[in-house]
């Protein structure tokens, strides 16, 4: 990218961007500090963002600590992912009214404000692309996902800090945002100047950019941004040797390592809740007391529950061994057969949020190293 194509925004310009999005009717969502974590929620101002915060992450460990500067995006990722908004945790699919021997079923048609995501990381862009493939790219289309997904405005951020459990570099999903955004920012923070190098991804992104104060980037700024990204790529907390994982796991479905992990796994399902690509759901009928109005709700589910694989008589996967194996082999192996790519984006959330710190990069390595010949 040469200097002519990239621009720089200052802090007030970034605020102006948020304002323009709001002015255009977007629901603006971004990271914010709450409940001792960085979560995604509605935001209005830069002050809503995690200014001056960073995170310390490891297996089963997450803490926020203060930075010694005022960086806005100086942390990795928290327990939330954008699937919270695109593939919502709980929605009503339809409602049915029982009247005079008739039943009328109505789908959900409520129009909602388009969404704007601020601060989307490269791994998250990949996760969104993966869920697009799963929920929109097959014979059937998931209508609620399509409704949410349409018209989302994405402001991506290139990571300046690699998290303790991050491994996007070895998964080839980051840290640089390459596609799927309207605008991509790299935060440049010196003692005297706080600004953002902006790469444009779409016509709409360019349009918004032109509406806020901006100037051309200098070569020095472009180089600085590249250096930041390179430094992030070199300081990943974890690593996954990714090229052969699918075949490795599929030929080791009976490996003793699964027993080893089953002894530790609580089958709590945290990993599935925080994973940005996990998409499993279940449905539940609900009805009023008289049974004249019933509805069907869809909510997130996890392959770790005993119910998940239940068929008359019992669960197909009742041992922790089989449920952990299902999750990990789906994520890293059978996902490839189903959707043409790995289901893992290397964000490390499953490692951080596992209460016992199970690490899929470690599990894959253990199987690789002890594979029976």
């Amino acid at each position: 990218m040469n200097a002519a194509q990239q621009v720089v925004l200052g802090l007030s310009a970034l605020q102006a961007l948020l304002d323009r999005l709001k002015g255009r009717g977007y629901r603006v969502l971004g990271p914010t500090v709450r409940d001792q974590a960085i979560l995604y929620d509605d935001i209005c101002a830069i002050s809503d963002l995690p200014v001056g915060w960073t995170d310390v992450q490891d297996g089963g460990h997450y803490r926020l600590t203060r930075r010694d500067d005022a960086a806005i995006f100086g942390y990795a990722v928290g327990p939330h992912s954008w699937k919270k908004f695109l593939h919502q945790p709980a929605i009503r699919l339809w409602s049915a009214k029982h009247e005079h021997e008739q039943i009328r079923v109505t789908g959900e048609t409520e129009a909602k404000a388009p969404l704007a995501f601020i601060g989307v990381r490269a791994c998250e862009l990949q996760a969104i692309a993966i869920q697009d493939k799963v929920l929109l790219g097959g014979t059937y289309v998931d209508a609620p996902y399509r409704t949410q997904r349409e018209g989302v405005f994405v402001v991506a951020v290139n990571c300046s800090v690699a998290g303790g459990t991050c491994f996007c570099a070895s998964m080839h999903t980051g840290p640089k945002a390459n596609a799927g955004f309207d605008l991509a920012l790299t935060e440049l923070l010196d003692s005297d100047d706080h600004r953002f190098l902006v790469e444009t991804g779409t016509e709409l992104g360019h349009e918004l950019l032109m509406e806020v104060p901006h100037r051309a980037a200098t070569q020095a700024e472009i180089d600085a941004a590249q250096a930041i990204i390179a430094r992030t790529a070199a300081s990943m907390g974890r690593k996954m040797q990714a090229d052969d994982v699918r075949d490795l796991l599929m030929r080791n479905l009976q490996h003793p390592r699964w027993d080893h992990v089953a002894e530790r796994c609580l089958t709590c399902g945290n990993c599935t809740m925080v994973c940005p690509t996990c998409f499993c759901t279940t449905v539940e009928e609900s009805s009023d007391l008289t049974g004249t109005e019933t509805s069907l709700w869809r909510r997130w589910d996890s392959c770790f529950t005993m119910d998940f694989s239940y068929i008359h008589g019992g669960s197909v996967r009742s041992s922790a061994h089989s449920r952990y194996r299902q999750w990990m082999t789906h994520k890293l192996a059978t996902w490839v057969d189903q959707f043409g790519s790995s289901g893992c984006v290397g964000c490390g959330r499953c490692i951080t949020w596992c209460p016992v710190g199970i690490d899929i990069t470690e599990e894959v390595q253990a199987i690789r190293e002890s594979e029976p010949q």
Partner: protein
Amino acid sequence: MFMAQSPETLGVGVAADVMLPRIARVRGLRLDGPETWTLDVEDEGNAGSFVPGQFNMMTAFGVGEVPISFSGDPSNADCVTHTVRAVGHVSAALTRLEPGDVLGLRGPFGTGWPMAEMAGRDVVIIAGGLGLAPLRPVLYHLLAQRDRYGNVALLYGTRSPEDVLYHQELRSWGGRSDLEVDMTVDHATTTWHGHVGVVTTLVPHATFDPINAIALVCGPEIMMRFAIGALRDAGVADEAIYLSMERNMKCAVGFCGHCQFGPLFVCRDGPVFRYDRVRTLLGVKEL
């Protein structure tokens, strides 16, 4: 890596929302086995448009939804037929419906039995217990154009004589000279005078050319594995054997993730599978 795509450029998809049930009305019910009822349902405009082996998702409003295979005649343009055994809340609610009652339908979903592959070949149908229901549409189809097929044999095993489905029909089929019907039970009663023993023992006695035959198997998974073993012992190739798998289903369109069997979604890649495709998967415990 993976390119993000806008919703507009991805799969055309289906215009109507696939999760919305359409309203259908019960025309009649028949008790066809222990706690097992066959429902004839008026499904306006949709009857006669399924492939044997496919299933509908049936909604008992206020209770829930379950996948049930079509069990009736595919040429019947009047109504759709499903045989339901009351094993849980939803299935029990469906069996308690009365003529005129309303239920919800979504479908047809899934892959069907390979009807086109059967022409000119001997057909061996092995059913266990309730597994006869998804195979009955095949028999209707074969018998309607009987001269297109070679020997047709139905081998049916149940737990006991009381568990036999479609008594009347089996009796009349047994009387046909162009259909071989052999039945057995695992546990006999004092009034049973037929075969006693597992359904696999019927295979060596059935009439078919193993080189030319095509076999369809449906029943409990253990029974299917052993029946397939008997077919292979008789010389039938893996590529000529088809089975119908069953897994927990919540959506039937490959989104809820519940029905996964290795890399396969039983609702979408199945429920009918050619044996060579699932052979290795069937050998993995708790997959």
